[in-house]
């Protein structure tokens, strides 16, 4: 059995998770604690990937990351190679696709923090930025972990978006879900079975972890 697709899926999930926790927390902070014009529109826009068919999102990303687009051509001048059908392309796609899944649990955690804690921090002389790092983040750890796990599991199972912008290039963009699909297409049922079996315990373990965290949260 070829385990490269499994490793690639794992790598993609890990990179996406780490990057999204860093990207999503300030965006969530902005959405929860600031009032600005167009906030509801931004909130709805970020959540679009939840309702859009992955192929639709994938199609737009394909155009947006292509050599004819400004981002695609900029990438080409900087790195000297096209962006589409590379590991970087599937990371970008995966970040956008998973953004709402990262934000939702964090949002719930941030909203649960008593506003007086923040006021107390301001009175003690902390800037908004310091309050974010010293009060909001440490009091939202379970929510942040939940969002990281959700993103990780979700990325492990991603298919449509990755196929659109990454194709199925062995060792680069052929992740487990795509390799399973191709194995079935080629009637290599044995390979498909092994890869599928490998994905189940991983996903199950992560879900157990989420439940465990939620239970701890209730106990607190």
């Amino acid at each position, binding site marked *: 059995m070829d385990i490269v697709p499994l490793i690639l899926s794992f790598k993609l999930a890990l990179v996406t998770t780490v990057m999204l926790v860093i990207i999503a927390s300030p965006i969530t902070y902005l959405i929860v604690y600031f009032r600005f014009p167009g906030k509801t529109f931004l909130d709805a826009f970020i959540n679009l990937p939840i309702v859009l068919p992955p192929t639709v999102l994938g199609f737009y990303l394909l155009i947006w990351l292509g050599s004819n687009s400004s981002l695609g051509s900029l990438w080409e001048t900087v790195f000297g190679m096209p962006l589409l059908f590379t590991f970087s392309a599937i990371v970008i796609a995966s970040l956008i696709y998973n953004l709402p899944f990262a934000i939702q649990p964090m949002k719930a955690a941030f909203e649960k923090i008593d506003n*007086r*804690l923040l*006021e107390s921090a*301001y*009175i003690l002389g*902390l800037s908004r930025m310091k309050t974010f790092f010293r009060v909001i983040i440490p*009091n939202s750890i379970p929510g942040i972990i939940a969002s990281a796990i959700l993103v990780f599991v979700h990325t492990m199972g991603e298919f449509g978006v990755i196929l659109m912008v990454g194709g199925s290039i062995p060792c680069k963009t052929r992740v487990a879900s795509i390799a399973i699909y191709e194995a079935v297409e080629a009637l290599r049922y044995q390979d498909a079975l092994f890869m599928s079996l490998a994905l189940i315990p991983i996903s199950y373990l992560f879900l157990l972890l989420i439940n465990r965290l939620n239970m701890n949260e209730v106990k607190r």
Partner: protein
Amino acid sequence: MRLSVHIRKRLSSFDLDVRFDCEDKQLLALIGPSGAGKTTIVRIIAGLDRPDTGRISFGDEIWVDTARGIFVPPQKRSLGYVFQDYTLFPHLNLYRNVSFAAGDTGHVRDLMKALDIWELKDRKPHAVSGGERQRCAIAQALARGPKTLLLDEPFSALDITNRRKLRERLKFLKGELSIPIIHVTHDIDEALYLADEILPVVKGSIARKWIMQFLMKEPVRKAKIHSAGMNTGAAAGMKNTERKVS
């Protein structure tokens, strides 16, 4: 230094309009029924709310002046604020809560010892009693060496025994501090025991008449205090304050 407050703010059911000063070493009690606007007043002094019009100055610093568009954010006002119920940071132990914004650790230790919470320094807020939490909140507010202290019903969530203990401790602390202290309460005994001056606030305005009516019933109240076996300090304080108010 003198804290001068003159603010107006339209609230949902009445207009808040108050003007008062508080000097160094003075404890000013804002007393009145709940919903009278007392908390809004201290929130405005702290910079957590903005008045519609008005001016707040501390010594020669101007914190708010709506006419000149000045508004100093709470971070820059250097004040201590003790909220109605505990707002300690749940993720930090008591020591880290007190030293949260204070650099000087020796001072933190002295404060925690003075408030009798040094032994509990490694516990988290949820693992100590309500009275201990509120003492910790006072230590936290004082640890930075604030220029003024705002107490918003700091005893309201405590039982009677703890309330009396903390009241005595606050009275002692007050003697040690040389800053203006504003104390919000709806408990007249508490105000009489602690305050140098009492400012009754009813429906957003200063209502001196209200406290006079209250004190007219004093003989009855005094008898009640005695029968409950309470410390007569409150009654003694009552006499002093009565002179001041009248």
